[in-house]
């Protein structure tokens, strides 16, 4: 189990380096998928197959699909690589890099100093055990997370909702008044951008 753990950990680190250094956006995303699967393998090796499976289902299977979808649509080419090169000047990344290096050293020191022997036992934690923990001692965390997600859902549905009939009418009326006194050209142009209002005005 320890061999599996270290192998997948090495894969995860290398793949993540590939994400950071990769020039091609879609290739970088493939590295990110590999990295997430490697992290899932780390969970398996640690004896938490439920967390590992969820890692693949949620991150590699659903969230990354959205990422790949968006990047595929953007069709990023050589120009973006050029742009990135101009952004990544030495002055820009040196400070954060040094600070993260210090943090890495602290982390390594802690890990080396800590008593880590025998932490990988090979016991597996079943899904049932995870569930009883989540809905037992950690119930409040689950409920808070659920509320946060609900709030995000409400916001997303508010932003993504289409224009109602009344709003379309309101938008149509305001610019028509303004164009009467010859000031609201920008507003009327904006209203033409909406499908419903332009449809109605053409009638």
């Amino acid at each position, binding site marked *: 189990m320890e061999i599996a753990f270290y192998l997948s950990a090495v894969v995860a680190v290398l793949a993540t380096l590939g994400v950071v250094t990769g020039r091609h956006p879609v290739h970088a995303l493939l590295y990110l998928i590999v990295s997430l699967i490697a992290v899932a393998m780390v969970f398996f090796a640690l004896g938490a197959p439920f967390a590992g499976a*969820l890692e693949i*289902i949620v991150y590699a299977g659903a969230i990354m699909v*959205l990422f790949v979808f968006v990047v595929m649509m953007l069709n990023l080419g050589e120009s973006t690589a050029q742009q990135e090169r101009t952004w990544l000047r030495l002055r820009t990344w040196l400070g954060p890099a040094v600070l993260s290096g210090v943090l890495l050293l602290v982390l390594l020191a802690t890990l080396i100093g800590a008593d880590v022997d025998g932490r990988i036992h090979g016991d597996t934690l079943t899904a049932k055990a995870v569930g009883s923990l989540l809905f037992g001692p950690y119930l409040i965390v689950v409920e808070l997370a659920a509320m946060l997600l609900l709030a995000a859902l409400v916001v997303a549905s508010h932003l993504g909702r289409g224009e109602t009939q009344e709003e379309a009418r309101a938008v149509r009326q305001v610019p028509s008044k303004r164009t009467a006194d010859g000031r609201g050209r920008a507003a009327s142009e904006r209203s033409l951008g909406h499908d419903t209002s332009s449809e109605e005005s053409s009638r």
Partner: protein
Amino acid sequence: MSWWTPQVEAIAFALFQSLVILLAAVGAGALLTMVERRLLGLWQDRHGPNRVGPFGVLQILADMLKILFKEDWIPPFADRTFFVLAPAIAMASLLLSFMIIPITPSWGVADLHIGLLFFFAMAGINVYAVLFGGWSSGNKYALLGAMRASAQTLSYEVFMGLSLMGVVAMAGSFNMREIVAAQETVWFIVPQFFGFCTFLVAGIAVTHRHPFDQPEAEQELADGYHVEYSGMKWGMFFIGEYVGIVLVSALLVTLFLGGWHGPWLPPIVWFLLKTTVFVGLFVLLRAALPRPRYDAVMSFGWKICLPLTLINLLVTGALILVFSPAGG
């Protein structure tokens, strides 16, 4: 023969089992390419391929020869790595999922206690086959197909997971063998009828079959995401689709129709019989249904199937709590 210990024998038997199941899955997929066309012919009042061999059974051989010896061409504008990777993902992720299916009491590859989740993970990874295939082809039709596939995936994956949670709650386990064992008296299709309906819809969507084949839609996208593929790479997408049909049918049987349970006949016969019925249903759906627009598919997923699965899960949970012997 001192090395032939019971342990070695167990390993050899497990290897033999996995090989047989793997070959049977691929073989069934290949056989289906011909069976489907014959059945479609039957249901649509035409002949189908009936020239090669008796009843056209040698058509598979002819098709295989054609696929294997066709020029395996990678377009110069394609992204090579992804172009080669996509069909491998398509085939491998679905074949790996056969691992969790218990075929008879003694046959089956792996007895994972997260069994069902393994299938979800593989179904999630399977999406990349279409996405990468469509993107790397460097073709607008292929990209449109991949776009539809990802939009569709996000709609069905959510309720696919939820549709099976009722079964998991009733069986008390993700393990496929325990789910089958829990159906000794009543098959889950009776108490979990809505779960069955929604998972059937999601299962068809996983395989990108009619009426969820918008990603490949021959009429408007000229085969969508695999339009640039030829030879065996295209063949892997093709066989992968049929392997998916067999997989989803086997899952439906295991989860809702009691797996190998059944009177008189031996377990393997029951399992194969039930699976065949579902495979036939898949073909019949293709023969009978037109293809809806993909935004209609998405709103069907979000507005009908998702609420249905949530209500189903809620009612199932409430009933389990009411009737549990511990009294809640």
